């Protein structure tokens, strides 16, 4: 592989080259685009590269060689559930019978697609213990926003306009408070206890009739199960609020317990985490939102329903919280997730959580002498170290992350959650074998040893990657975000 390849596609450009082929324009002159008034046309064309088709293939193949994915190696990025992405999912997602379907095709011409949507929604409802799902939101954060809109609408439709606060844990992912802000809600932070779970005593005084609800994830972002959840649910419901579940951590409990049974009223699922759809270098994913019985009408429009004859149709509900997407979500991603669920089947879905949790505990227990484990005990699908156990080396979490790249691993999530200064958040997922984990453990121990013996080696890592540490300060101070800016 040619990792030193360093051209931009623009730098391959040569006037006169082209990579496309289109049919001839055989229409009469009176239909020519030249008839469009000049005042509506641009003066100079966009400067796009002039390259051949082959240039494009080779260029992007070379770029791919400078990338690391789950297919490349172990990717223990906490909170992101980087499990294996089966190829059959993508094969199904690309089937022309779905890929060539226009979203405004009438329902009778899209019965297969609507059935996929309907049945996937039903499967997610069963898996999470809620009554109904929308698959329209495009990602986890989009699901959060949708869920909060539902929460807000629920109160408003009951004539309760003063509930404008949302309680968020201090260990919550940044999107939780951000989604609340975008939904026009005020954020109140609840503290966590030393063991990382929500402090019920700190929560109680926050609960009053201005509270719309609480956002939690369980297990929380530290990988700790919130055992007080029944009590928290009781308290929040008693005060008239609703409980929102951030499904980013659903993989931990898949098959073992369900958010609906824990007392949650609304939740999202990241299909690109728990349900194995590829992360695509940052997306697309999909963020289905589920609600408990009684809230179904509030799901965003459009809604997919089935009539008495078993025909599927697209409906809208006046009570709906609104529209959050153009159509019915990232539909191809839905196909991919549905394929995964059907491949696992009822007998295997329930093994996902237990095996993911087993892998996490195995890694945690194997490394807790070398790395500082602030919260001991059985974790769920992930856990957090607060840097090295030996605090005298001056080697930071960032250094450790960079050194891992040299050894062929993607780094864990670092500096999140923000509860600790040197967070290293590790999530192995259930699809990694004991052998892979053993190798990783060995390398983590080796890095810890290097930190003591040759700290500078770690501090200056990586060495073996396509590029080494980057000057991020200059990038931010003098931003160059396009080729045009780069050339001047």
């Amino acid at each position, binding site marked *: 592989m040619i990792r030193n390849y360093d051209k931009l596609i623009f730098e391959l450009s040569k006037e006169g080259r082209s990579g496309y082929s289109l049919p001839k324009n055989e229409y009469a002159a009176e239909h020519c685009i030249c008839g469009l008034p000049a005042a509506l046309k641009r003066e100079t064309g966009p400067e796009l590269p002039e390259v051949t088709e082959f240039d494009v293939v080779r260029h992007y193949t070379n770029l791919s060689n400078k990338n690391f994915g789950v297919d490349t190696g172990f990717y223990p990025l906490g909170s992101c559930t980087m499990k294996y992405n089966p190829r059959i999912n993508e094969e199904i997602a690309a089937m022309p019978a779905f890929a060539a379907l226009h979203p405004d095709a009438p329902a009778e011409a899209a019965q297969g697609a609507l059935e996929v949507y309907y049945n996937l929604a039903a499967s997610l409802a069963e898996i999470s213990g809620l009554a109904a799902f929308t698959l329209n939101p495009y990602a986890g954060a989009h699901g959060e926003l949708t869920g909060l809109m539902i929460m807000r609408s629920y109160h408003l439709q009951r004539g309760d306009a003063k509930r404008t606060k949302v309680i968020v844990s201090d260990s919550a992912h940044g999107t939780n408070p951000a989604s609340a802000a975008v939904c026009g809600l005020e954020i109140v932070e609840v503290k966590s206890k030393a063991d990382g779970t929500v402090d019920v005593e700190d929560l109680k005084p926050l609960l009053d009739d201005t509270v719309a609800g609480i956002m939690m994830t369980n297990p929380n972002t530290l990988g700790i199960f919130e055992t007080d959840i029944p009590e928290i649910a009781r308290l929040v419901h008693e005060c008239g609020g609703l409980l929102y579940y951030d499904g980013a951590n659903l993989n931990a409990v898949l098959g073992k317990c369900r958010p609906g049974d824990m007392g949650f009223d609304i939740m999202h699922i990241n299909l690109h985490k728990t349900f194995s759809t590829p992360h695509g270098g940052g997306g697309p994913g999909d963020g289905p939102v589920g609600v408990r019985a009684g809230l179904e009408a509030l799901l965003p429009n459009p809604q997919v329903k089935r009539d008495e004859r078993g025909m599927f149709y697209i409906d809208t509900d006046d009570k709906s919280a609104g529209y959050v997407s153009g159509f019915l979500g990232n539909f191809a991603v839905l196909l991919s997730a549905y394929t995964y669920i*059907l491949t696992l089947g009822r007998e295997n879905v329930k093994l996902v959580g237990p095996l993911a949790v087993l892998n996490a505990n195995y890694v945690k227990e194997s490394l807790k002498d070398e790395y500082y484990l602030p919260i001991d005990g059985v974790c769920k699908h992930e856990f957090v170290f607060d840097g090295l156990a030996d605090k005298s080396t001056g080697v930071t979490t960032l250094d450790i992350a960079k050194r891992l790249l040299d050894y062929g691993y993607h780094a864990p999530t670092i500096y999140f959650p923000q509860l600790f200064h040197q967070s290293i958040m590790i999530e192995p997922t259930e699809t990694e074998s004991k052998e892979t984990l053993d190798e990783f453990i060995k390398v983590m121990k080796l890095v810890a040893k290097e930190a003591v013996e040759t700290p500078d080696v770690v501090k200056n890592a990586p060495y073996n990657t396509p590029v080494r540490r980057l000057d991020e300060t200059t990038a931010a101070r003098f931003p*160059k975000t396009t080729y045009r800016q780069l050339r001047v």
Partner: protein
Amino acid sequence: MKYFPHTQQDIEQMLSVAGLRSMDDLFAEIPQQLLFNREFDLPEAMSEVEIRKFFDTLGKKNSQLVCFAGAGVEDHYAPSVIAPVISRGEFLTAYTPYQPEISQGTLQYIFEYQSMICELTGMDVTNASMYDGTTATAEAMMMCVSIAKKRRKVLLSETVNPKVRRVVETYARYQGVTVERIAEKEGVTDIADLEAKLAGDDVAGVILAQPNFYGIVEDYSGVADMCHARKALMVMNAKPSALAVLKSPAEWGADIACGDAQSLGIPMCYGGPYVGYLACTNANVRKLPGRIVGATTDVDGKRAFVLTLQAREQHIRREKANSNICSNQSLMALFVTMYMSVMGKKGLEEACSLSYSGAHYLAEQLAATGKCSLAFDKPFFNEFVVRTAVPAEKVLEALRADGILGGVRIADDMLLVCVTEQRTKAEIDRFVEIVRNI
């Protein structure tokens, strides 16, 4: 199960390292009443053979129709080289490029994507992608309000796609932002109405479309000055494929350009995934949501790319965030980047030219049938509205019976019809023939 590598022996050894005796011990702290103790009501596991048959059967329940529908999603040509390259595991199975040293592939294509989107729109900067055109426009609305600080009103032209409008209106409602509609007049934005609504000096932004929902290319001469004189930002929701030919948002004087880049070859896929784009002038970059990639160098002086200006982002700003977007549509950004590379300026122009000619030919031929007439006398691009003599639904049914998706019904007697470079003259003639025989 083929996705689980654990042998019984592995499980035993791993449990023992973790100091546990059984798999149940992994969940010992969970209150009993929360444990899920029955079988899931789901089908049994399917083999790959069964999966393929299962989805084949489902696929056959969809009709394969020759597509003349647009209304925001069009049936464009996608070069064959895109799918195999974007499916490479190194692209497909990576996540957000948090570790730039091993993510230069992703970071560089985002940089190229940003460069090309800026070329098309004429804007200075864009982010790494939004979910789709509807949410990108909602984010543009939020940018306006955030930049204007005290103003909490935006104007939204009735010629903007209703699917975009309803998402903008939903977001605005929860934010306490007032959305006022600018009237449509003969298929285009009523500029007098816009001017009147700007007069209160309380408008943060004005959202317009190009081409508009009816396929009409609007003349926005003077509109930017009108907005700026009232300290309102001008937002243009524009179709990127058409920008190879049309005056760019920047040339019209827009401050923000946004929309859906599905028209750059992305399969229709029953609504997604597509990719929203959001671009703006340098003056507003600090309020631009989402991720941005910038060029820099590594310690050895090698050129490299990195996520930059991150202080704007939700993981830093938390409750002060203007946007909550985290995962985006990165792979689809790669899709359109490859598309624009293969097509180049000339290919894009030629695709526009074919679509334009086809649409104008179809419009003329349809009018000649006497069964419908062009609804507006305005310059259009590759999409147009016809008024039908019989109910539009009847026209669509007749076409569907012959394997054609004839467009999108936008009123009882109005049909929005779209032609792309994928439609042949023969297909267009067949469309006309069917309408003539109704």
